[in-house]
């Protein structure tokens, strides 16, 4: 199976409530990424795990948390959702330093915060 799976596909959340999104891959990729995509904007990297090391982008450092309990799974956690978090969240994975480094993307989770 050479796909990245994301759950759920659609998520409705209330302002102020936590949100947890799940991603999995079985390709033994060492790196997993989370991107945020809003309409008419470029996908924006939020954070990535290289093996067990979490790297968060400076401008989203305090807004998102993540965990990677094993090589196959990675979560994206929002502690208190705000309206501005409404977006498509894309998970991707790749092997860092490999011949083909283009990350493979999942189908995304569309988060709507009300």
């Amino acid at each position, binding site marked *: 199976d050479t796909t*990245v799976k994301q759950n759920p596909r659609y998520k409705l959340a209330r302002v102020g409530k936590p949100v947890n999104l799940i991603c999995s891959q079985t390709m033994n990729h060492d790196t997993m*990424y989370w991107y945020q995509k809003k309409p008419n904007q470029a996908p924006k990297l939020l954070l990535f795990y290289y093996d067990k090391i979490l790297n968060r982008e400076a401008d989203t450092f305090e807004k998102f948390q993540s965990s990677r309990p094993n090589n196959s799974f990675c979560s994206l956690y929002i502690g208190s959702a705000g309206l501005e978090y409404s977006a498509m969240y894309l998970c991707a994975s790749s092997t860092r330093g490999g011949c083909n*480094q283009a990350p493979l*993307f999942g189908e995304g989770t569309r988060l709507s915060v009300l």
Partner: protein
Amino acid sequence: QQQVRQSPQSLTVWEGETAILNCSYEDSTFNYFPWYQQFPGEGPALLISIRSVSDKKEDGRFTIFFNKREKKLSLHITDSQPGDSATYFCAASALTGANTGKLTFGHGTILRVHP
């Protein structure tokens, strides 16, 4: 500061024509450029990619032309088909260093191919 720019924002061509999608970048450390194709309701899928040591990469009807000196590249889709209608993202990354694998995306070009 937008590091990867794409133009046009949207493009309409007739079936059989060649669609040309443009991309430019600013960071000279970028040396790997994948193009992704995204259909509504789906995630981006890798279409074709090029490394900065090459000036051309061809895969069927899809060709990337790369100009390192001008920091520009373009995706040519020959014999465009209605099924090519999608959003195309140009992305850039470095193959070495701390930012290896991190993609910087352009805003995308929406391509419509009319039958």
